[in-house]
């Protein structure tokens, strides 16, 4: 059984629908620690020691956030800047996170076809997230292909949100119970509610 840490970063929780549902689910699962970063650090004064200690207690780290300007919300970026210190997460003696996993859980406002060389965003979602991928690599962590939902603001109207939410729950449980197919996942650029690679016996 793996221990999972979900770090939610949403600067406008009052307007959050998709992440609100995902958060409710994440908080309901045993073995998952859920943290609302904007709630813990409304003034951006991150407690580095506490955050590092929390990281060490978990095996799989999830960044759950709405994509903002093709990146993480500012507080999550601040969190990376402060918590992933030299000598701790990377560099000489920086092996505290060795062997752990990093999984971004992203909600994107634009539709899937916008995240394409021909779409108005010009790049695919995986490419936008390469900074996280390289961060994981430098920190000796294994990067798991991002679990994403496109056109997230329309998801509830289109009836897509419920499946995305239930699959999120399945994903978290599979990660916890070692029923997640990492090899298969590595072959996919983006994980969605339709292509989750779960092993036999996953709940």
């Amino acid at each position: 059984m793996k221990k999972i840490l979900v770090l939610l970063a949403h600067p406008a929780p009052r307007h959050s629908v998709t992440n609100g549902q995902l958060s409710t689910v994440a908080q309901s699962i045993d073995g998952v620690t859920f943290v609302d970063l904007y709630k813990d650090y409304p003034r951006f004064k991150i407690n580095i020691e506490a955050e590092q200690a929390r990281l060490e207690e978990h095996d799989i780290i999830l960044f759950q956030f709405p994509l903002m300007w093709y990146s993480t919300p500012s507080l999550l970026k601040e969190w990376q800047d402060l918590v992933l210190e030299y000598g701790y997460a990377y560099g000489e003696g920086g092996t505290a996170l060795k062997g752990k996993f990093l999984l971004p859980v992203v909600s994107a406002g634009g539709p899937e076809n916008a995240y394409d060389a021909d779409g108005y965003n010009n790049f695919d979602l995986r490419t936008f997230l390469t900074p996280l991928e390289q961060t994981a690599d430098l920190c000796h962590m294994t990067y798991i292909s991002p679990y994403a939902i496109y056109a997230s603001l329309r998801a509830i109207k289109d009836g897509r949100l419920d499946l995305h939410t239930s699959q999120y729950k399945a994903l978290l449980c599979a990660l916890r119970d070692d029923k997640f197919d990492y090899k298969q996942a590595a072959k996919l650029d983006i994980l969605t509610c339709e292509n989750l690679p779960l092993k036999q016996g996953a709940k």
Partner: protein
Amino acid sequence: MTGFLFQAFVYLCAAVIAVPIAKRLGLGSVLGYLIAGIVIGPVIGLVGSETQDIQHFAEFGVVMMLFLVGLELEPKALWAMRHKLLGLGGLQVGLTAGIIAAIAYALGVNVQSSIAVGLVFSLSSTAIVLQTLNEKGLMKSDGGQSSFSVLLFQDIAVIPMLALIPLLAVQELVDHLHHDEHGGGHGAELSLVDGLAGWQVAGVTMLAVAVVIVGGHYLSRPLFRFIAGAKLREVFTAAALLLVIGIALLMSLVGLSPALGTFLAGVVLANSEFRHELESDIDPFKGLLLGLFFITVGAGINFGYLQDNLATVFGLTFGLMLLKALVLLGLAFIFKLKGTDRWLFTLSLAQAGEFGFVLLSFTVQNGVISGELSQLLLLVVALSMLLTPLLFILYDKVIVPKLTGDRSREEDEITEQGTVIIAGTGRFGQIINRLLLGNGFQTVVLDLSAEMVDRLGKFGVRSFYGDASRPDLLHAAGLHDAKMIVVAIDDPDRAAEIVQHARHERPDIHIVARARDRTEVYRLYRAGANDIIRETFDSSVRAGRSALEGLGIHPYEAEKIVTAFTAMDLKGIRKLADAYDPDTPAHENAEYIRLAHEVAAEMDEAMMGSRGAHKGSVDRAWMPPGKRPDSIDE
């Protein structure tokens, strides 16, 4: 009574007219006083022989000045300058006295008198030079410090000189003296050491010095605290005067120089938290007495004798000043003073000093120098002092432009270190002080409560007792070269006064002020404060934020709400500050009322915005990228 009032009127009148004119003309206050003295004395003849008595009284200004000099000088600093003090000072006095004595002997004066003349002329004028250096802000420069070391050595050297002079007595003159004497004189002075054996004198003297040092160190604090507890300014002033006069009296009784004694007391008290208060209490007395002293020097010039011996007096004066300057220049080379500092040192000390007058009258009393010779020498001393301001003008107008003109501005010496004055060290000022000290800024902390100063002292926070709304105290705390002043006192009237004064004196200084409420914000704004902090505003906003969080609002939402609120409030207060009129109550000020309504409406709109649509100022951002998304309120 009328006579006394008339004299006081004449002296003050002369000073009040002459000094501002002299200063305006760039001549400095000392020359102003001297000219005032010449005018009321030899020129108009309003004052006469009583100037001699007044001069003895006014010499006390020198004593006070040395007390203040001591206050500025911490023991550590004194120890650090011991090489300059003994080396530079010792060489200057020794060389000058020797050369002058040799010349005097060559001119036909007998050996004993020659030595006395050398001693008299080796001294410079502490009063003029220190006053001028302070006025010009040159005290902390290398040249100023070197000059100060020499002056200090001279002031100390006066004591052994006074001991030496009776040994130089010329039998002929002594006989003459005894012939003239009609009783009284020196022996009538009160003394503790008369008739004691040498070792007893030494013992009593040591004891007196010990009393000053130990008393200053251990007794002054509780005593001053007790007096400060009475919260009567004049009593503290009286205590300060008592201290100086008491020490001067003690020193005189044991036959030591009062100036040296008070200087010592000043050094001992330099570490005291009452330093600035003492300084500002004594300073006006010192200024007046020194002024009086210079007036009497001017008034005492014997113009009749001067006219008869014009060439001799001027020749001797110029010769003396040239010689002294040459010795000083040589020393400046040896002690590696550079550029303007070398010339400051050379020019500032080239005159004879007020102790010269003292020594001269002493030499005559002891039959070392004849009355006629002393008359001549007296004029030389006075004239050289009179010419000193001209040397400073030469330094300012010729030497400085010439030497600094050739070089880049970078080499200009910063003579004073920038500091932050913190007025008020209650709960508010303490925090600021800690933040500033912790980041390497020098602070001068002033507080009206002696208990507070004492309590803080126990925790290692250095602060000074004093009323920061007194301009002289602010000045003593270094207002003229501080980078910033933080006004953190309770009394709103005093706070506004301090801000106004600081802004008036220093248009460029940064002023951070603490305000109790809006009205005070407006006042401080008018007085010229840069940053005005309402003492309870931030904490009330934080309490409001906690309340919002407690009611279930997401902490980050609460943070955004109070950020918007604070911004709106500051904007509103700035708007209202312009409409505020201190003479009209706010509820009668139509423009103020109109603006207040306007501000309140804007504020409501902003706040409602955060609860309703996402157009309010609280959260305009955090919309996803790309095309305008569908409404998220559905």
